[in-house]
């Protein structure tokens, strides 16, 4: 008898408890977005990923913000002036600004937030992006104190920033996540846990009302925002879904209205989506490339690197594998960055490649040491690696071993230069070639090739100090020429394509753009 009462009793208890705590139905938000994986943080100083950045740009507003076409427009700052030497920016904030809890918003909030992001104790992964500000780098590396960082607040509505070098893209840079303001009293009171819905305070178009792990982040229109009329939808749910087929199922069944990432569309069905009215592809500021470890043979020899680069048939990779209409990459920087003309890259040239390998002492690949190609485990990376392995075998006669590692191990191998050739990709943070080219300056953390060229470094330094924008871009193009036509520490393979999925009959305010910026405030229902 005990047995008969025991099992139903126990299971009933478990069920009742779980049902109560887990199953709460809630009304559907105005817009449901599949946003990718679970956000790691919503603290702008700690954010390093795109999906978190997207949420942050709804929760906070910087001096400038991005519009739905990715253009930089005034945000919290109404206007700004730049000194004749291009090194001092004075931002004038809009009057009557408030935080979401009603506290007044002042220029001091920006000073606090930027210094916080630079403070070594914050351990911000993106602090580097603030290094243009005078004294910032020294403060972050612990060599000086916060007072030496030259951010001034002459009055509550004015913020003056002194830069080390003239930086024409500085105003647009202030829309970047790390530059977003945080509420000092909240951060200091709650420490690491201030971004929880109960304690969170922000100044963006939306406020955080709920955040359930691996489920969703719920946003509601912020009534304290300086221009609430601009915000078109009152509630938005961003679902945490990382599996492409699941995200696509949610979209297809109408449970989600918008897919914001190509990673959320199953690669297999990509070719079938072309031509559908709800499929919106567009170029992105991101490049898929391979790195060489130039510190050890055989890739110490530039002729070998060049041979490997010229032997590649990139067209077949985008045609056969990625299949999203990706443009092949001959340069590291994608096309479309305003006013920048990247140099002409070198097209595929198998016979020159064979000649170069012969010159390097490996005619038709004879005597070529066994080298390996490192990539992090993913179907796409593997398919590309297999294809490239076959191309090198066919054209150069060399055997390349494939070496696949899971994410953290792969990153360590990159950091320790424990590879011969490695897969990589880079997403630009702002629309300037510097965001790509700076990676390959000697001993930069992101260099990860061991490559060092004083001419390249000096060109980038000269570009930094150059007040004339045209001349500056010319210097950067010159540097890129060295990178991709002479030194070959990397082989650019293709530029990424972004894909949005939404029904244009229902939604507007969404446009594919290079920076993949889709501010939630500009999305709205189509007026009939």
């Amino acid at each position, binding site marked *: 008898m*005990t*047995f008969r009462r*025991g*099992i139903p009793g*126990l*299971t009933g208890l*478990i*069920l009742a*408890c*779980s049902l109560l*705590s*887990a*199953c709460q*139905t*809630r009304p559907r938000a105005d817009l449901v977005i599949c946003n990718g994986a679970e956000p*790691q*943080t919503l*603290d702008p100083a*700690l954010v*390093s990923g795109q999906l978190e950045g997207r949420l942050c740009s709804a929760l906070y507003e910087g001096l400038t913000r991005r519009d739905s076409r990715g253009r930089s427009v005034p945000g919290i700052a109404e206007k700004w002036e730049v000194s004749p030497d291009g090194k001092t920016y004075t931002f004038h904030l809009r009057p009557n600004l408030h935080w979401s809890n009603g506290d007044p918003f002042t220029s001091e909030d920006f000073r606090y937030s930027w210094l916080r992001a630079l403070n*070594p104790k914050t*351990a911000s*992964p*993106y*602090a580097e992006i603030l290094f243009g500000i005078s004294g910032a780098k020294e403060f972050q*590396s*612990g060599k000086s104190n916060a007072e030496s960082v030259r951010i001034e607040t002459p009055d509550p509505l004015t913020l003056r920033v002194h830069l080390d070098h003239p930086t024409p893209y500085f105003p647009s840079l202030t829309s970047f996540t790390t530059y977003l303001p945080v509420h000092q009293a909240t951060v200091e009171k709650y*420490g*690491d*846990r201030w*971004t929880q819905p109960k304690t969170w305070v922000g100044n963006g178009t939306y406020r955080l009302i709920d955040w*359930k*792990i*691996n*489920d969703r982040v719920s946003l509601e229109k912020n009534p304290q925002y300086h221009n609430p009329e601009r915000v078109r939808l009152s509630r938005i749910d961003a*679902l945490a*879904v*990382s*599996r492409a*087929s*699941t995200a696509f*199922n*949610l979209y*297809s*069944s109408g*449970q989600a209205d918008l897919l914001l990432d190509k990673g959320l569309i199953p690669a297999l069905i990509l070719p079938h989506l072309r031509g559908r009215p709800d499929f919106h592809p567009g170029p992105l500021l991101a490049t898929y490339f391979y790195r060489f470890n130039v510190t050890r043979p055989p890739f110490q020899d530039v002729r070998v690197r060049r041979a490997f680069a010229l032997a590649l048939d990139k067209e077949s990779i985008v045609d056969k594998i990625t299949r999203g209409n990706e443009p092949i990459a001959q340069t590291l920087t994608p096309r479309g960055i305003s006013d920048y003309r990247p140099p002409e890259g070198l097209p595929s040239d198998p016979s020159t490649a064979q000649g170069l390998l012969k010159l390097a002492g490996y005619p038709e690949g004879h005597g070529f040491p066994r080298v390996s190609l490192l990539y992090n485990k993913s179907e796409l990376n593997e398919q590309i690696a297999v294809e490239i392995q076959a191309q090198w075998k066919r054209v150069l006669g060399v055997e390349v071993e494939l070496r696949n590692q*899971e*994410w*953290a*191990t*792969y*990153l*360590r191998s990159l*950091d320790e230069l424990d590879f011969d050739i490695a897969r*990589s*990709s880079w997403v630009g943070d702002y629309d300037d070639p510097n965001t790509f080219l700076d990676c390959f300056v000697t001993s*930069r*953390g*992101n260099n*990860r090739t061991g490559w060092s060229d004083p001419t390249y470094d000096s060109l980038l330094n000269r570009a930094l100090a150059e007040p004339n924008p045209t001349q500056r871009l010319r210097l950067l193009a010159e540097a890129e020429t060295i990178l991709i036509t002479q030194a070959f520490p990397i082989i650019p393979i293709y530029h990424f394509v972004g894909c949005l999925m939404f029904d244009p009959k229902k939604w507007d305010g969404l446009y594919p753009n290079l920076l993949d910026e889709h501010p939630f405030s500009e999305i709205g229902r189509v007026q009939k």
Partner: protein
Amino acid sequence: MISFLLRRLLSSLPVAFLVLAICFLLVRLAPGSPFTSERALDPATRHMLETKYGLNGSLPEQLLHYFSNVLQGDLGESLKFRGRTVVEIIQQSLPRSLLLGSISFILALGFGIPLGAFAAARHGRTTDQWLNGLALLTLSIPTFVLAPVAVLCLSFGIPILPPAGWGTPIQLILPALCLALPFVGVCARLTRSGLLETINTDFVRTARAKGVSEQSLIFLHALRPALLPLVAYAGPLAASILTGSLVIEEIFAIPGVGQFFVSGVINRDVFLVSGVVLIYCLLLLLFNLIADWLTAILDPRIRIQS
């Protein structure tokens, strides 16, 4: 009985700590750091983070530091989901896995046992063969095949159920079915073989000789001892089914605890992994204990010995 349970509980604690220690050390020994990303992190920042989370000393020091926190009830903070404690993550996601898992568990037993008993009653006949084949089929189709096919059929073919998501009872149906189905097969087979074995024992033969009907023979007399192998299997099954399934959670976008077993390891999120492994371990110990207790109830011989 109470002293038996207490003794078992106390002897389980060292096991839990051993598992925790092994798990912690394995994740810490794996190459790579929880703080690296595609964008390089400068060494000073990494050092700052390691100090903050108590991951900068030697391995034994780190383990000691962790254990002293665990003993005070602090499972640490997630290294990837900044500002979230492991306890908070488990608190939020475990009830969802428990809910889904318990429904699946009930389905597995609720369908598995009657089907198995039915097959045993029809031993050797066509029904038995059909049921046997079906059971074999359900347990040999992997979940990652079963779930997408089920979605295709029931969400898009005949659109009656939502393909994924969490929040409404109707969203639970597909994942619960997909999670339960393979175990229905296992339960049915275990029940069937247990019954067939019991049917040939002396006491069943006696009952049959006394003229007990075939139906009450199976369901009233033979089933109880025949369930012993199933109970032994159901203990660990309950623990694993209740802590969520990575595949089911991913495919149906269920915010449960199952995915942290894998994503935590990939991210080297040592405290999160250790936390969920600890929960799994405790559940496993608990359900094994319950299974032992049920075995004693089901089998008078064991009761007499203890």
